[in-house]
């Protein structure tokens, strides 16, 4: 993880490889290899493609013929989206849940991002006793499955903390949309170990000279953090931001437990899972609904893919 040689933060590291890679370009491009890779690519794409095509076919068509008949009898409609997003609660009302997903996700990304970068800086560049042990402890918390925390954390929200009959913290007693706060809290807690680990990987690799020069100039830690570290680790922040965004937006378990199922707080995933259970044959709604929930992460993912990949590699390989 921590290398002795000062390296410029991620991003510039990859450039050295391209020239050597070019020399090895002569490569097995046998027909078999091409064929196998095309087969895999098609296998991986077709299910999503079928869903997309289905979501724009009329209800009657979806329910009676396969989506592949679309190409021989193309019939196109946006009715499914109209229905599933805006009409009554029986058909989805997903627009409402879409807003919930947004309201849950944005703070759940920002809080761990800020707290973890502060913590990672302290663990990397402030000298204090027991620093390494603390880092290892936080690192180790990554392996605690969040299932271990669910029951007591829910109890913490609903009944507060009582030690020997004395109420230390009252119950949160949140209603309706206030429950968002519970979900933010839970997501922030669960994200921190990985966030600290990932950002520590980047921050600890900043050049030591730079830090020492700043210290000699009389900069305090908060100043170094704000003016030097934060701008340099933007790619890492982006990487974790995307991670956390995808994780929270796509999460079902935490939302199910801490947000409840109502349209005041439940995100898209909870609603879709419920629809898949109770309206399993309403494919016109399920297909359109699934696409509504997919489209935002897909856009985020495609536009910021290189940050995501960089974060993935830093998080898994270097660790």
């Amino acid at each position, binding site marked *: 993880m921590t290398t002795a040689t000062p390296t410029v933060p991620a991003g510039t590291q990859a450039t050295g490889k391209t020239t050597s890679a070019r020399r090895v370009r002569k*490569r097995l491009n046998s027909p078999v290899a091409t064929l196998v890779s095309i087969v895999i*690519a098609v296998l991986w794409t077709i299910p*999503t493609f079928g869903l997309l095509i289905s979501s724009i076919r009329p209800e009657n068509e979806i329910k009676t013929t396969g989506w592949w008949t679309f190409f021989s009898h193309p019939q196109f409609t946006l009715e499914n989206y109209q229905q599933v997003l805006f009409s009554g609660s029986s058909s989805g009302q997903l627009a409402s849940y879409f807003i919930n997903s947004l309201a849950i996700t944005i703070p759940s990304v920002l809080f761990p991002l800020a707290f973890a970068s*502060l913590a990672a800086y302290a663990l990397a560049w402030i000298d204090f006793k027991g620093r390494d042990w603390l880092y290892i402890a936080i690192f180790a918390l990554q392996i605690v499955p969040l299932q271990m925390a669910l029951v007591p954390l829910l109890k913490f929200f609903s009944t507060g903390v009582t030690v020997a009959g004395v109420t230390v913290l009252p119950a949160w007693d949140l209603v309706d949309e206030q429950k*968002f706060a519970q979900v933010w809290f839970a997501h922030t807690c669960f994200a921190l170990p990985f966030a600290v680990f990932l950002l520590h990987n980047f921050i600890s690799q900043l050049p030591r000279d730079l830090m020492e020069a700043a210290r000699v100039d009389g900069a305090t830690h908060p100043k170094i*953090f704000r003016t030097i570290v934060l701008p340099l680790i933007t790619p890492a922040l982006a990487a974790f931001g995307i991670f956390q965004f995808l994780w929270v937006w*796509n999460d079902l378990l935490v939302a199910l*437990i801490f947000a409840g199922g109502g349209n005041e707080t439940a995100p898209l995933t909870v609603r*879709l899972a419920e629809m898949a259970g109770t309206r399993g044959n309403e494919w016109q709604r399920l297909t359109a609904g699934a696409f509504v929930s997919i489209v935002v992460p897909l856009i985020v993912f495609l536009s910021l893919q290189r940050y995501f*990949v960089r974060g993935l590699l830093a998080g898994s390989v270097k660790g």
Partner: protein
Amino acid sequence: MEFDFAEEQPKFLMLMYGLIAFVAVVGGLLLLLDVVPAWFARRHEAKLVAASASGAPLPRRPKQREGLFALFFLLPTLLLLAVGLVVPAIRTTLLSFMDGSSSHWVGLRNYGWMFSEDSIVRVLINTLIWVLLVPLVATTFGLVYAVLVDRARFEAVAKSLIFLPMAISFVGASIIWKFVYAYRGEGDQIGLLNQIVVSLGGEPKQWLLESPLNTFLLIVIMVWIQAGFAMVVLSAAIKAIPADIVEAARLDGVTPWQMFWRITLPSIRPALIVVVVTLSIATLKVFDIVRTATNGNYDTSVIANEMYNQAFRYQQNGQGSALAVFLFVLVVPIVIYQIRNLRQQREG
């Protein structure tokens, strides 16, 4: 009830409160860290001036300042980790030795229940199948694909296609695949799988109702999502193999097959281990897929699902907690294995 934007306003208000809280907490902390040390520095200077004026020995620079800084930088993280993770994990462990309503100690009864109740044993077996198959199959697909498209003409596009499912939620993926598995009693099939079966002359089936086949069909969904992860990490590892090794091997006239087994595979072994370990842990905790696709019915349930059902549907906190603890116990050896591996790499 039509969609009414006015009804959504409280949510935006709540979101705004959340953002204000964020700015207040983070901004306040940074401000505090800026102002307080500056104040201390001024006091220290004043002391220095006073000391030099009176000729007394100069007071030493206070030593604990660094530690104090660290404390404030770490405070939010440590507080949240304690409240949200450490204390709950300890309490869950304790709860697992208590009864359903957490009022009496029952010793190891919940753990005994786990291994004696037929339906739960089934759950454990299912989880075992998941953990054995998903890492193996997903890594194989990812590796094969990474090798095949490496430096091919449309590498970037080809990789994106496989990688894309990673952006899709498990819930969305489950719906996508439920549609592939869809079954219709009469008329045309609308599910791709049944259509293929029918066009090959077979009988359409209700795939997700047939145990044990359904567990494998759910595993397909997980593999579909995770192969992209394996592919990206392994592809990066393949590209990091030094060019001269590959060149030398080629000069020696090795076949592509030999190249893969003798050069590529040994070179990317560390990355391979990381992928398998990461996938194993992710698979152990799988919940969304089973819940969305079958809700754990028809013998498809896994530990995380059963834990949810016990704790939050049947209010059996003791049994739910015991399952959670067991999940944790299963993760530990995998992680220890990885840590030992990393240490060996660093030494060797």
